[in-house]
Structure formats: C-alpha cells, structure tokens
C-alpha cells in the first residue's frame, strides 16, 4: 500500500494517521477535513472552553513537535466515494485517489424540525458552534436547553455557572435513560434541580418564537407552554455523516457497517469514529459508538486490518467508556446499560451524588457508573474488560 487517504481530520482521523505511522507505513498520507481547523479536542467545547476557562490553544490535539508527514486538505468536504477507482471527490471539484481509504467523517448535530434556524438558536458540535454559543452566553439572561442528554446537561451546567437562568427540556420521562438506564439517569439528572436549574421532562417542543428582529424570544412546548429565552441550545443527539457515501455501494445502517476490526463492505476501505458502526461480537449486532475513547483507540485495529487486508489480530476493543463533567461532579460510565437486569449501588449514596453503581445481567457485570469515584471506577472498568475479553 503506497497511499492512504483519511477522510475526516478530527480525533478518529488523526488517530488513524498516527496508527499508520506507528505501524511503519511510510507511503503517501492525505488527511481531508471539512472544517478549516487542524484536529482539536471536542469535549471541552461544552465545558472549559464554553466557560472561558480554556482557550483555543488548549484544544490542539497534535503535540508541538509532531510531524506525521501528511498532506492536509482542510476546509475540503468529501462528497463522493468511487469504490472502483478508490477515489474521493471533494466539494471544490478535486479528486484524491489512494490505495487505502479510512472513513472518519464523524457525526453532525441533529436539529429539531420545529426549531427553525434563527439567531440565538444553537447546536454544539464544532469549534465554530462553540465560539458562537460562547458569545451568546456572554449576553447572560435566560437559556433554554432542548434535550437533557450529555451535551445539553453540560451546556446547562456551564451556563448555570456563568450566571444564566437555565431551563432544560427533555422529551423522555427521564433524561439519560438510554445510556444510563432509568434509575441512574434519574440520579444524574437530579444534578440540575440540585443546582436550581429547572428540568421539564416528558414534553416535546413545538417550535420557537422570534422577536421583532428575528432573534429567538421563546421556546413553545408541545403542551402549549411558552418558555421565554434569550438563547436556545438544541442538544438532541447526532447523526452519522454518511450522506456523501450514497451511491458508493458501501453498506450503511446506523453508520458505516463494519466488521469487528473496522473493515467495511468495500475492500481497502475502513471506517472509524462516530460515523462507523462496528460489529460487536458480544452483543451480536452492529453498534455506533459515539465516544471519544472509541475514536482514539479503535483506529489502531482498523489501520492494522487496512494494511494487512486481513483481521489484525488486535485485542478486542475495551468496553465503551465515556465521561461527563456536570456541576463539578465527574461522571464516568463504561460498558452497556441496555440489557442489564439489575443495578446495584456498591459505594456511596445516590442522594449524595457520590456513587458507584454496577449493572449486571444474570449476575455478570456489564456496566459501571461512577460519580466522583475515579479510583473504584477504574477498578471496575478493569474488571469489565476482563469479563468481556
């Protein structure tokens, strides 16, 4: 293999490029990114960066003296993949051809059909999104967050600390019940009320209202209630960026369908990060894992498979892991809550928001949640990895 094209220049793309060089690949390496920025770290965008505690230099993912010997095509959006020629067409008309292709195009923030794109209404995914939201939060006033998931909760926490009056609206009866289960979703989302942030659950959003200048003035709920707002954040999840692959013949489900090593249905093409749904042998199904650590760790296996053309014999990926920081509480989760039949508090107390809870299925640990319990959390995370490997 003499040339590899990495489509996507965020954490997964950068990790793939690093893994290629780490495996001794010395051929041509091209990275294409639709944003104009070098790879940057997204988790702080809803936390330290949004709070103004970290500047853009702190987001840089490359080391100061790092040189991957790569060609960077930034501000260039991929629009088509030709599997025969193994070439990728860019929005500006250029075409890049390579022996191997790594798809790492990530995911994009979902929007609400009812919440028209108007001034003061934000999603949060990119650095440019965060810059715009940060500027609006600096105006103070009332913030309505639509969606009680992790992004919404972190934005609410940050905005609350900045002094805004915050309301979180969640369509489900309990926020975070998907990733954490009903009981622990309830415990974690109690952090809002603990800090005087209003949480409205079980209600959808009909739309937004604008003031005379076209700026958002209120959020209107499905039940007719009207929440005055100076700024609105829509945090209702992300969808994989796979539209550009239509017509390539690559198999797509919820993301690019991959084997347990990142190989797609097309030879010489692997997929990593938020856009990829790897086969999970333990679950017997494909799962798209939208976690930072997956984007960091999995490209090594995908690149090994790409270079060898066969399974890399890598260790199975560790159980999915993510963290969240809300209201000064460090929340950590590893494994999968879905499928657990019991959740047991092993340490601390839910009321104290200081808890270690273990999820089990048929008595076997399948997931662990920690709130301000990093040491015991790590022990349980290691145990989970031992159980699943």
């Amino acid at each position, binding site marked *: 293999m003499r040339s590899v094209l990495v489509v996507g220049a965020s954490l997964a793309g950068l990790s793939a490029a690093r893994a290629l060089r780490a495996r001794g690949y010395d051929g041509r390496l091209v990275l294409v990114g639709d944003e104009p920025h070098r790879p940057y770290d997204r988790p702080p965008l809803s936390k330290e960066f949004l709070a103004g505690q970290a500047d853009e230099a702190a987001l840089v*993912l490359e080391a100061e003296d790092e040189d991957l010997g790569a060609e960077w095509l930034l501000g260039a959006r991929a629009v088509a993949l030709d599997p025969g020629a193994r070439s990728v067409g860019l929005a500006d008309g250029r075409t890049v051809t390579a022996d191997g292709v790594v798809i790492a195009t990530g995911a994009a923030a979902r929007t609400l059909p009812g919440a028209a794109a108007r001034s003061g209404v934000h999603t949060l995914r990119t650095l440019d999104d965060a810059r715009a939201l940060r500027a609006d939060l600096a105006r103070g006033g009332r913030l309505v967050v639509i969606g009680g998931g992790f992004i919404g909760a972190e934005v609410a926490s940050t905005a609350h600390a900045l002094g805004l009056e915050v309301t979180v609206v969640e369509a489900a009866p309990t926020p975070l019940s998907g990733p954490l289960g009903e009981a622990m979703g309830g415990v974690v989302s109690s952090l809002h009320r603990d800090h005087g942030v209003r949480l409205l659950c079980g209600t959808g959003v009909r739309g937004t209202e604008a003031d005379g200048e076209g700026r958002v003035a209120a959020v209107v709920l499905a039940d007719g209630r009207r929440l005055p707002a100076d700024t609105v954040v829509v945090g209702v999840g992300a969808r994989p960026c796979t539209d550009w692959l239509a017509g390539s013949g690559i198999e797509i489900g919820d993301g690019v369908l991959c084997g347990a090593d990142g190989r797609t249905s097309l030879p010489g093409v692997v997929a990593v990060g938020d856009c990829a749904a790897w086969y999970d042998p333990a679950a017997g199904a494909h799962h798209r894992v939208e976690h930072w650590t997956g984007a960091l760790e999995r490209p090594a296996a995908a690149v090994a498979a790409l270079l060898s053309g066969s399974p890399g014999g890598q260790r199975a990926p560790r159980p999915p892991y993510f963290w969240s920081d809300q209201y000064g509480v460090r929340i950590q989760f590893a494994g999968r809550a879905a499928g657990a039949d019991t959740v047991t508090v092993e340490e601390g107390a839910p009321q104290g928001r200081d808890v270690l809870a273990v999820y089990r299925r048929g008595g076997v640990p399948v997931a662990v949640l920690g709130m301000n319990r990093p040491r015991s959390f790590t022990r349980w995370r290691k145990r989970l990895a031992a159980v699943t490997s």
Partner: protein
Amino acid sequence: MIPVCRLADLPRGEAFRLETDPPVAVFHTEEGELYAIDDTCTHQDASLADGWLEGCEVECPLHASKFDLRTGAVDAPPARRPVRTHEVVVEDGVIHVRLSPSAPGLPSCAAGRLAGGAG
C-alpha cells in the same frame, strides 16, 4: 528522601499517593518494579494513582492518555506534556522517593489551584 510506605503495604498492581506539593504517585507494577511520577495528569486535575496500571504504563483515570512510568512520556491526547519521574529507593523495607529537581508539568487548572487561585 521522602518516606512513602512499607514495601509490604503496597501490593503489586497498586499505587500510593504521596501528599506532597505537588503530589507524587508511587506504583508497584505486576512485574514487581517500583516507579514514582507526579500524580497529577498534565491535561486535567486527575490523580494518576487512581488510573489504570498495565505493564509500565498508567492510563489517566478520566481520559485516555497513558504515561510511561519509566520516562514520564505521554502516548496520546488529550495530555500533551510528560509527567516528571522521581527516583525510588527501598531502604529497610520502606519505599522512599527522591524528588526530581525539574519543574512539574501541571495542568493549568491544578497549577492555578496550587498557586491559591480558583480551580
């Protein structure tokens, strides 16, 4: 030299956090080696003694940066700077560390906190 704890009280695979300023983490690897590094991750205020110890590396308990206990080098983001390493000496069954004279690579939040500022 600063006494840490008895060697017999630090089983293999475990770590001890020494409450110096800044704190130091002493690791006893599964292979029986002893290492000491600065306890605070250079990315964010997290205790590496709480991290995932495997071989001669410890992974930050919060994010995924791994530090080489022998050199202090970091393998991957989000941390970008190494931690200091310190000399470990065992005398009469007691672990001691001799602190490095170089400047620590603390994250900005922890550095501010240690300097008396807000975290």
